[in-house]
């Protein structure tokens, strides 16, 4: 089976290509998240769930 299909398939470099694409992608994301002066930004964004808007009419704030 293996030889049968591989003999008709010439792009076996695709596995290597997949590896390179993923590695580049992963490293870029990693570097991006640790860019300079981003700490405060991520802290703020992490707190978004706790701000649902100010309740009006003194009713339930839903939180």
């Amino acid at each position, binding site marked *: *089976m293996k030889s049968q299909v591989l003999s008709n398939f010439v792009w076996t470099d695709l596995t290597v290509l*997949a590896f390179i694409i993923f590695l580049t992608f992963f490293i870029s994301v990693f570097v991006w998240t640790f860019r300079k002066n981003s700490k405060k930004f991520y*802290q703020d964004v992490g707190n978004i769930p706790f701000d649902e808007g100010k309740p*009006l009419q003194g009713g339930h704030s839903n939180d």
Partner: protein
Amino acid sequence: MSTAVEKGESNLETFSYNDKLTKMFVIATLIWGAIALFLGVWIAFQLASWQLNLDLPWFTFGRLRPLHTNAAIFAFIGNAIFAGVYYSTERLLKTRMASDLLGKIHFWGWQLIIVGAAITLPLGLSSAKEYAELEWPLDILVAVIWVTFGVNFFLTLKRRRERHIYVAIWFYIATILTVAVLYVVNNLAIPVSFMKSYSIFAGVQDALVQWWYGHNAVAFFLTTPFLGLMYYFIPKAINRPIYSYRLSIIHFWSLIFVYIWAGPHHLLYSALPEWVQTLGVAFSIALWAPSWGGMINGLLTLRGAWDRVRREPILKFLATAVTFYGMATFEGPLLSIKSVNSLAHFTDWIVGHVHSGTIGWNYMLTSGMIYYMVPKLWKTKLYSDRLANIQFWSATVGLLLYIMSMWTAGITQGLMWRAVDETGKLVYPNFVETVVKIVPMYWVRAFGGVLILFGFVVLIYNIYKTIKLAPKDQSEDVFRAAPLSSNPIDEHGGKHRKLEGIPLVFSVLALLAILVGTIIELVPSLVSNTFVVKDSRVKPYSPLEIIGRDIYVKEGCYTCHSQLVRPMVAEKLRYGKPSSATEYIYDRPFQWGSRRIGPDLHRVGGKYSHMWHYRHMLNPREVTTGSIMPNYPWLFRNKIKYSSLSKKMQVLAALGAPYKTEEIEYSVKNAKEQANKITRELERDGVDGKMVNKEIIALIAYLQRLGTDAGGKNEVTSAQ
């Protein structure tokens, strides 16, 4: 909603959340959840005791198992996703969903699809591709409703009052985009009639597309939306931000990028090309990292607050869900390693693995989320913490029984299948020996299922009481927040425009991430003509065999029987020559299956007499002592429907089967001739000649043809 600018507080807008829609989805989750779990318990008992198939067509395991999986995934978990997504999206974006009407269409459309599934699947109207069994009219409805949901979601993003998009929303965006791509591609088919179609993909290519879909249905329906929910509900429930926001970003991008490649691990040792299998394994193992990154992020958010986890049911459910997520995502990559897979594939180990994900992760997280949302939605307190704890323990113990019994059953059966003695013979040549051995485990599993279902019923009662005791005034609360335009960053027009485009840029990037894997893995196999070597011995099915195959599809035979002999010594001894890609080129849909509750059927053609099959379908225990297969008496009553035969052949011919015009024209005549021939043989064994027009004859025709072209007795040379 209405926009008002108040004096004094510089242009705050007032708005309210569409909680009515969320409430509707919560209630739908509870109803369908109970039904899906009940179906699971029912089919679990059917495996323990075949009599529960009741000799009724719409009650057999083969038809109810697809209903169970579809109900669990799309009805129970689907509605839970929508409830949680609507609840959290509105609050994270500080806006009401863009359109109440689209929300309503989404809700009622989705319920309509579920009712459609509940009617069509037991009737056997199935396209027989796992977790995608719905036939084409329902598929179109799914696509339309999904797009409705997506449109409403993206319009809401546009109207948001929170500039930054929280990580949960990213997971929702990835879900919406990817599910649309997966569902549409996998269900591409040409209709034959109102409720019957043939997949545009055949054989190996159909398998590849199906498991690219099947695996990513797990990834983008059962995982990414729930990770989004985890990133919202865990911080909310414990009232502190997620442990590391940075980690959540790395988690997101690496997870969606890697997941899409992993599908081929469902097809190891199959007729799929080796390089695709290897890629699938490599990326499956890589999945360990992002999955555990996410799990650790969730669990570390609870650090220093474990005393609260012990006391508060909501946190108990959420923490358990994340733990099971970690366990299931550890087990998944493990199972994808080829040597482990060779043992586990086609056994109950996989079934156990699936349920540690769906029950451990989805059921638990859904329960925690409902306990969190319901008191807030109905402005009240939970009726009983004690009942919530009872559910927790009942479900947890039930799940552990489930997983452990399936591990035991799976490994036991897998080892028995491959056991070969020193003389080179199978130790357990009769398949049924390996079945009888694990039936006790089926009882344990079914009992575990009962406990899980019981827990869910307790949840429903608890929520019912909570809602009943809620205050009468359920009017929507009003909130105030500044619109995006008031944010100082927007004073510079250029920047404003740029940032407004971010959700779009983001969506495109997310789509790219999933398309890279899809294209590299799928496209070469789909476009290449030489991908599968043509073998002149492999011929398309005869007219009667087409009808027989459609009966095989209708009865859901693939839920218990594979059609794929793997290249292993034990399989060759048990079944015959390993399957090759070329043998499937006329199979629409492919029927490789994923579980061998009964033996593989790819080399069954010619193995037994017509009479053996005849008696076996009437009462399997007459020829195989200890068999747990249902009886199929209706196949001996229902007449063969010849009416759509030529239409079917036209569609198959259009898709590439080399039928000649006269073959299509005389299809009914040819089919009847073949039926006569089979019946004449059966008559010699005492069968009434009147059976000639019954479905059983067509099914026998198909079964006797299986795997004979290039692997049966007539085999001359090996293609390998």
